[in-house]
Every structure is written in C-alpha cells, then in structure tokens.
C-alpha cells in the first residue's frame, strides 16, 4: 500500500519531467525558475529546520555510553564510544557520520527451539548504507564539471578515480554501479523484510524511488545512445543556473534530461520537510554529540523547575516519636528532651 502510493507519486513526477521535455515552452521554467526555487527552498528549509531544532534547549546531558567510562587511572576508557572530551565527541561524531559506527554494530536476533536466542552478524544494511551515501557524495562532486569552468580539479580527479575500471566508452563509473546496487538493495529490503515492510510509510519509499530515478536517468543519458544528450548544452543550462543569468535555455536537449532535472528539483523541495533531514539531525543527536562528563562538569538546564521536596525538618517532625524510640539523633529535640 505505502509502496504503491509512493510509486504513483513518483510516476507523476516523472510524467511532469517528460512533459517538460516535450513542450519546449516549459523548458525555461524547468531549466531556470524551478531549479532556483528548489535550491532556495532547500537551503532555506534546511536552515529553518536546524534553527528550529537548535531553538529547543538540551536540558540534560544524556549520551548513550557504548564503552568504558573514564574513571580510575588504570582503567582504559573508551575515548570514542564513551567520550568525555570535546575531541572525543568529535571523534565519535566523525565515526558516526563518515562510517556509520552504530549501524556497524547491527546484529540479527533469532529465536530457535530450545529455546535458543542467537545473534547473527548482520552487516548488509551497513554495507548498503555506506555504498549509497558515499557514492552519492562522489557523484555529487563529479557533477561540478557541469557547474564550473574550468572544471575544478577535484571533480576531474574523482571522476578519473571513479572510472578507474576503464570499461566502455564513456567509461563506467564504479559509483554508478554501487549506487544502483545499494538503492535497489535498500528498496528490496524494505519490501521483503516483513518487519521493515510493516513499519514503512510512503515517505520511506518515495525518496528511494526519487533518488533511484535520478541515478537511472543520469546513467541512461551517459551510457545509452538512444538517450544521449548534448553535454555542451547541458553545461550551458547548468552554468546559466549557477550564474543566475537570464540567457535563454538552449533547445533540443533530450526529454530524459528534463526528467532528471525535475526529479532533482523534487528531491530538493522534499528534503527539508522529510526524514531526509536525518542528514542534519544526526549532528544534533543528544545521545551522540554530548560528552559523558556530567559527574565532573556541570551541565545547566535553562528551565530547571522548582519542585516540592520533603525537607528533613518536616520529616523529623513527622517521625519524631519513632526516632526517639529507636535512638536516632534529632536536630530539634522537644523542650523536655533538650
């Protein structure tokens, strides 16, 4: 059900893209206006979301500790999994953001007869997530060759590394293969793993389809002669976008290119209002980005509430006789006792 809703939505976006490709009159809109708008919505939306998060305080320091804490001198602390210093926190965050440290811990629980509960290693999700995110980053950087003249060194460098297998003309990029594999895995996993399918919303399928669509249209333009597009013109569109100029969008780029652009714009529009914001949220996650140092460094809660405490004085008053009977010392003995 969720997957169907997501697919219909995705199909609609693709349809709009084709329409833009077929109707030349629409191309200035889809080549300039829409990307600009998408870009601003994306940047503005992301900033707004992060600002919203940041505007709520962090009342308590609640890191999840995943290793030995710093205590006695002769016990080795886990500086990254249970950091007590800012440096340690930065290390932990880097491991988390660059290498998905927590996901790497993943296991799969099974209950067998006996009973016997087994925890198998389960790294495929980590492999899929790493392959997807890293490929996406590299592909993104590669695209700078369209947006900049002269082409920046990193874009060329990455592209030639990426194409190191030297298969086919134009050569096949490793990341293209990886990202298609990874996205397909993530999508299929969502559909086949019963528990994951059960929790999945349209909002979980839709971005996978969007990105897969973007990737596939990109690959089609590069590798299938039928869809091949004029890269000079593509670059004109891209440079025009970057330069914010109003020069006319060149005509005669294949329709597939417009599908590609429409999908990207949709992704940019969608990003700030969706779970894709995990990209920003992970940096602000209080169980990860705080040091476990509460016992030696004071953390202040800006709204620390006043509460009613049962004070000793009243407590002693309440139990006065019983305390006398069992010989507990009193702060305020009654006159006779004093």
């Amino acid at each position, binding site marked *: 059900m969720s997957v169907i809703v997501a697919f219909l939505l995705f199909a609609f976006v693709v349809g709009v893209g084709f329409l833009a490709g077929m109707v030349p009159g629409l191309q200035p809109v889809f080549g300039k206006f829409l990307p600009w708008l998408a870009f601003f919505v994306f940047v503005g939306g992301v900033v707004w979301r992060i600002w919203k998060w940041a505007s709520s305080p962090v009342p308590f320091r609640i890191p999840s500790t995943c290793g030995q804490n710093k*205590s006695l001198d002769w016990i080795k602390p886990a500086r990254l999994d249970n950091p007590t210093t800012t440096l340690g926190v930065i290390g932990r965050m880097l491991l988390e953001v660059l290498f998905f440290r*927590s996901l790497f811990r993943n296991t799969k629980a099974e209950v067998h007869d006996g009973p016997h*509960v087994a925890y198998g290693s389960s790294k495929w999700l980590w492999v899929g997530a790493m392959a997807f995110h890293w490929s996406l980053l590299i592909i993104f950087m590669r695209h700078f060759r369209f947006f900049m003249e002269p082409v920046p060194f990193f874009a060329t460098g990455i592209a030639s590394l990426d194409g190191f297998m030297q298969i086919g003309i134009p050569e096949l990029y490793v990341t293209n293969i990886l990202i298609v594999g990874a996205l397909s895995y993530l999508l299929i996993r969502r559909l086949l793993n019963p528990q994951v399918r059960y929790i999945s919303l349209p*909002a979980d399928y839709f971005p996978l389809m969007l990105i897969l669509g973007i990737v596939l249209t990109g690959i089609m333009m590069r590798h299938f002669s039928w869809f091949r597009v004029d890269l000079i013109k593509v670059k004109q569109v891209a440079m025009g976008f970057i330069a914010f100029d109003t020069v006319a969008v060149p005509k005669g780029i294949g329709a597939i290119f417009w599908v590609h652009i429409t999908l990207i714009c949709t992704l940019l529009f969608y990003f700030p209002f969706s779970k894709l914001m995990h990209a920003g949220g*992970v940096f602000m996650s209080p169980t990860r980005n705080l040091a476990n140092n509460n016992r030696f460094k004071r953390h202040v809660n800006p709204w620390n509430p006043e509460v009613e405490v049962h004070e*000793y004085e009243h407590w002693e008053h309440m139990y006065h006789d019983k305390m006398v009977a069992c010989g507990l010392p009193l702060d305020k003995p009654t006159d006779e006792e004093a």
Partner: protein
Amino acid sequence: MSGAGFPKGFPTPEDLASVDLQTTPLKGWMDPKVNFEGRRGTWSYPAGAKNLKALKMHNPREWSPADEDWKLPKDWKKTILNGMADRLERFRSFKIMMDICVRCGACADKCHFFIGSGDSKNMPVLRAELLRSIYRREFTTVGKILGGLAGGRELTVDVLKEWYYYFYQCTECRRCSVFCPYGIDTAEVTMIARELLNLVGLNINWVLEPAANCQRTGNHLGIEPHAFVDNIDFFLDEIEENVGYKPEVPINKKNADILFITPSGDVFADPAIYTLMGYFLLFDYLKKNHGFNWTMSAYASEGGNFGLFSSNEMIKRLNAKMYREAERLDVKWILGGECGHMWRVVNQYMDTMNGPAPKNLVLPKSPFTPTIFENAASTKMVHIAEFTADLIKHKKLPLDPSRNDRYKVTFHDSCNPARAMGLLEEPRYILNNVCNNFYEMPSSTIRESTFCCGGGAGLGNDENFEMRMRGGLPRGNAVRYVQQKHGVNVLSCICAIDKATLPPVCDYWAPGVEVHGVHELLANALVIKEGEVRVNNLRGEPLKDESEASEGEE
C-alpha cells in the same frame, strides 16, 4: 531450586519462547486497539488514587485498564497536545527524535520485549512511531494536510490506551539507542510519553507507590526510620550468626567523612540484603583497620529513584534528598551503592537538577589510597564499585577468592551503568579478584549490548509477570548458555532491581542459577582478621559445597 512461585498454568519456557519475529499482523500498525482483558499478565495496574494525591498528581481515581471507561479528564486531548507542544519546546531530544527516524529497522530486534514477544509494536521504532504519528499529524504541515498518507494518526482514546500499553512495556533500557545510526533513544521517547500520560492520570502503581513512599518516608519501600534501624539491626545479627562478627552501622551521624546511600531494596529484600551485609562487612573492616568514618541516613534512605520512570520533575524531587542530607550531616562526599537506574540519575541528572553540590562536599578522595576521584569532581558522588576496585588495586583488602569456590560466576551488566555511564570494568575487576571462576556471557548480551532483566522502569510487578518473563528471555537464555557451557550457578550484578527481577528470570529460563550482588561475593572473600577461619558464607551456606557434583547442572 525449582521454579517455585510461577502463577498456576503459566506456560512452559518452550511454549513461551515459541515467538515468531518474522510475521507481522495483517492489520497495519496504525490501528490502535489493544485487548487489555485478553492480555492480562502483560500490563501493570494503574496507580492508586492515594498515591497520586500524595504526590499532588493529576486525575486521581480508581480505575482499571480492562474497563471501557478510563475516566479521563474532559479536556484530555487538549492537555496531551499542549503537553507535547511544551515538551517540543523544552527538549531538543524530543524534537529531533520525532523528526529524524528513517525507519531503517536497525533497532527493531534489539529490544528484549520484541525478542520475547514477537509483538511488532515492541520494536523500538514502532513504539516511538505510536507517538510520532500523532506528532506528524498535529505538529507538521505535511501531516496536517495529508494525514494518514504522511504517517499521521488522529489522537483518540484508543491511541491513549495503546500508549499506556506500550510505553509501560518499555523498560527504558536504551539498548535500542546503541544500535540506531542517529542515536534515537526510545527510552527518551518513552520518558516523554510517560510524562504526557501522567498529565491525564495514566500511570502505573509500581512506579508511583514507591515514588510516594519515597517522598514521605525517604525510601521506595516506605520503611519508616525506626523500622530502618530495626531492619539493619536484624541484618547485623544475621551477619554475626553467619560470619562471627557484628559490624557497627552508624545512622544519621553528623560529621562523618562519607555518607553512604544505597537502594532500599538492599535493606528489605532477599537476595539484595546479602549485598547490604557485604557493604557492612567491608566498611567495618575499613573502620577497624583504617578508621573509616561513615554513616547511612534514614532520611536519604533511598539510592534509587522511581521518578526516572515518571517525570523529570519527580526525579528532581526525590533526588534532592541526597544533597540535602549530605549538607545537614556535614559529610565530605557521598558513596553510592549497587543500583542501576540510581546511577543513571546520579551520572546524568543529579548535578543538573539539584547541583551544584553543597559547599561542605569536597573533591572525593579515597581515605585509604592516594586516589582522587576526579571523575566525580562536580557531583561529589562515587560508585561503590569504583571505590572497592581502587581498594583492591592498592592492595588494601586481603582477599581469599577460594571462599567463593562453590560459585561459578557470570556478570550481568545492568542497563543504566552500562549505557548511561559506562561502568564496565570496575565490577569485573572486583569479581576477578574475589572469585576463581568467572565466565562472561556471549558478547552480544553484555557490556553496552547488555539485555535488560525485563522488569526495570517500574515493570517488575506481579501482574506483569508474563511480559517480564518474555522480556527476560534474552538475558535468561544467555545465562542458560554459560550454565550449560561452564556450569555457571551464580549471576552477579550491581543493581537492586536486578536482584528482585532476575531470580524469577533465572528460575524460569535457567533454573539452578542464583543471583548475587558483587559486594556479597566480595565480603565472602574478605579476610577480616588474619588467620580467620570462615565456615559459612553470608547466606549461611557452607563455603565448600559437599554436593557439588550432583548439583550445578540441574
């Protein structure tokens, strides 16, 4: 050694463990209906009106979850939504955790309640979605427009009932947070959800009765000062009987160096009482040999803090007594006993809520070793395992580990010391010095990956027994594993709740394994006088088990 005390007709372990983690209900999860009547044994009784009144909490009344009418206040919906809005403003954690879950499912099979029940809504992700779906619908634009398509749900009475069922079916153990790529901590979501439920009077008695007791008497069990003194006297006699010494225990003594605070379960319930006796022997040894100057308090007579399972304000209220009493008694620093959730509070909340520590408290320094506990520089509160491990390291304690030779020991990391503190090596160091046979359970079930006892966060009550045994499956099964492999017969731990909840878990899933506190084992091994001959351990059992060969296995 039989599994005595299980309710009549309770399923066998084989039956209870025939769970299927792969099958999901036909109905989508957005349907909130819970059949309370049909699921007796898996939920906790509501808090009695008198406890709510004592704590000045909302909507005190007598009711049962099995009733149709829960006697909610008229404007319950507004109250909950306002409560959410307010907490979104006050807790960044809440906002982030509502927003960034990608439903990857990495946390799904990390929860002991899911593993033991197969109930999809016990997957941490779905537990959180029960609240998130309301958030999406009421607090996000997309959710307001698209509703169900955007994963939003309307807040109905049935949703509230479902919350009651599942948020009081999470032990706030944080195991899920270790595996989530964004550190989403469903325990945090549960804590917020319970705060919301409290606003309309939906709470469980096993949390609020101890809290009310603690507010009134100073401890969860409601032990009044004279009974506190009596209990301790009784244990001192017991120690004398079993070990041949009668330690002295100062209570409410002013100007001691150290105030010792431990959970009241230690003063009350078997087998935690043996841990208490262990402390007493240790402290008495230190006093006789090194002039240790310490005291307990009948006012701050609770280390634990059931406020943690209710609301942040309640944590603060109950915790405040520690510093108040440390100030009144004019001690130098505080030493805390074996307890799990207590140490989450001390490590992560105490200083923020009730600090800075009173002026009379100083940077804790061991009176007997050169060690300065820099790690407690702000709270001025040291964990007993740190204290003792340091003593052993500096050879201050003569130990004879062979006195624990009848035991083959494994160690259960309690959730909070493991995942809200990182106290992993200290207890192990002590154990390795006080007993000769120590074996670890499989690595997926210890340290930061440790499994809950199944009865934390107020769920360790009798009416919830089936769910406790289900939640105890992963832990119990790991114990069973080392029992079969190494003949383990003692599960040691540093938590008072564990000492109450793990015995039935062991009786059920790994019969023949007993639960002991680390300081009980330490006191068994502690040579109090040179040349001392001890026949019995703290439990009054002979040190050498004559029937060793026949027991142990089953």
